[in-house]
């Protein structure tokens, strides 16, 4: 069975670090990391190799040349191979163009049975590329999955999260599944596996390397949505600090809650 895990390198700055004084992005934290939900997807792929025989796992990412670091890190978890789609022609792609480009790569890799993706990237937060990729490949897709079981070689039973519970869905391969954090706790890579991974070559593809690419559907040209403007919201609040002994503060707070009809 061939599994492709789609990963994205995202800036770590979206995870935590804001300059506490100016409340803007702290540039010091511009390090790239693998999108956290994608790490869950990688872990799930590795778990499948531990449960079933003859499973090949591949990491695929579209991004600038630095995304190679993310793929290197992905390999240390024990994936078999990694592909990087990188080309200026891909830059500026929105989710539609990204999904199309990834689909072309998946087609070129060939014979893919299952695609695993994190449910969304923490920089774009759209959760659109997974389903878009599945649509381009004309395969089944299920999102928000927190459990995957194989009933047989080509039939899966998965649990897909709902707002107030989950649904159990049966599906046939080939398929694309986006996973949530609930699905697993990713391992810390084993050093011995990581050492072997460092010796692997990451295969790099440009637009030229893909077959039958319609260039009007990649990069900026292939993106119907346009970012017109970007603003950094400044949050200013006139915080009222309550002072005094715990008892005084408690009384003060309760007064304020009463004033607002909360109690």
């Amino acid at each position: 069975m061939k599994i492709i895990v789609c990963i994205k390198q995202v800036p770590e700055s979206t995870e935590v670090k804001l300059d506490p004084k100016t409340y803007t992005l702290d540039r010091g934290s511009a390090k790239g990391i693998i999108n956290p939900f994608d790490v869950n997807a990688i872990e799930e792929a590795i778990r499948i190799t531990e449960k079933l025989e003859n499973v090949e796992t591949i990491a695929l990412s579209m991004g600038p040349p630095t995304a190679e670091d993310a793929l290197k890190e992905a390999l240390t978890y024990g994936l078999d191979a990694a592909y990087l789609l990188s080309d200026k022609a891909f830059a500026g792609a929105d989710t539609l163009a990204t999904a199309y480009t990834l689909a072309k790569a998946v087609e070129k890799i060939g014979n893919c049975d299952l695609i695993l993706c994190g449910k969304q990237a923490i920089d774009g937060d759209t959760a659109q590329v997974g389903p878009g990729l599945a649509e381009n490949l004309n395969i089944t897709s299920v999102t928000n999955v927190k459990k995957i079981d194989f009933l047989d070689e080509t039939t899966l039973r998965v649990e897909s999260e709902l707002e107030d519970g989950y649904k159990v869905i049966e599906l046939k391969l080939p398929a694309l599944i986006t996973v949530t954090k609930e699905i697993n706790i990713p391992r810390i890579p084993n050093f011995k596996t990581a050492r072997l991974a460092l010796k692997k070559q990451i295969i790099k593809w440009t637009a030229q390397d893909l077959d039958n690419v319609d260039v009007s559907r990649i990069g900026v040209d292939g993106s119907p949505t346009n970012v017109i403007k970007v603003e950094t919201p400044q949050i200013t609040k006139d915080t009222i600090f309550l002072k005094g002994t715990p008892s005084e503060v408690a009384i003060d707070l309760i007064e304020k809650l009463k004033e607002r009809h909360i109690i």
Partner: protein
Amino acid sequence: MSLKTIKEKCTGCGLCYESCPNDAIDFDENDLPFFNDKCTLCGICIDQCPQGALVLEKEAKSITIDLSDYKGVWIFVEQNEKNIPKVVFELLGAGKQLALQLNVELAAILIGDAIKDLSASLFQYGADKVYFIEDERLKDYRTIPYTDILEYLVNKYKPEIILFGATKQGRDLAPRLATRLKTGLTADCTGLDIEEGNLVQTRPAYGGNIIATIKTQRNRPQMASVRPKVFKIPELDPTKEGHLIEEKFVLQETDKWTKVIEIIREAKKTANLEDAQIIVSGGRGLGKPENFKLIEEFANSLNACVGASRVVVDAGWIPHYHQVGQTGKTVQPKVYIACGISGAIQHLIGMKSSDFIIAINKDPEAPIFKVADIGIVGDLFKIIPEIIKKLSN
């Protein structure tokens, strides 16, 4: 499309370089910024430049379709076992405003099994038309048939705008449809408006660190998903009626449809955080897992729900469904009380839209105070028991 520096305006302040999350800005011999391979055209530097010296150069692209062919604002009506989530009504309100600005009709699309009667409330909340398709095979939402049906309807009626609730179902269906239609979809919008006939979509990105304004200018329909509670539910007009239209579509079930084996609604172990009016949240400042009892007591005394920061969820002190934040839940209660929570950005994203925020933390520099309406600097182990005591009086 590329980023360019307007030489005359650049003062060499370096703010663009400092704010770039991708390390994509270098400086040439004249100290002017230029953009390397790592640039993802996110646009943050353009916003940060105080001189407006950075611009995005776009080649004007020709529009290949006749945009005027597309008319009407549509709302996709999600229903789960005939329950329509509140966000659909919120969208009817927002959609109505857009429709009025465009001088077009507002329609709702209803798909399912024996769901015709749900249309009454849709009219009452503002829909002019309701298109519906019924079939027992459509009883449970499944991606492919719903996408196929919407594709058929869109091609038939050509709406210019379609709105979805950014629910799990909405965020599953909308991208599949948008890709099928090869059109633009903007997720999780927090604002919608019309400008020169185009839908102006506002949404947060980079974990809420930036707000982006997006348009889909050359494609139709313009699709967007909207978060619950962004818009208010409009006034209900019990007398309002509308045009109910049944559509027919030939369904051919294939493997791609998937099978829904079971739907499990979980007995609320705790009330749904996302609907809570008051939330009391605990963070690392509690010190150890046993101390979460204090938060629970505090929450009980206010009839509130218990929330938590990611740090304590990751440490296993409290289950994940209590987590508030970027990778947890986004909440908008009337009151949010953050106890021993420092206010890391990924937590703030999940709660900063709360109406009234109270923060208790012993560190006066904690970022949580920047979003708090009321700040209490002190020992929560002394302060919270006092509050609980006084409340019980």
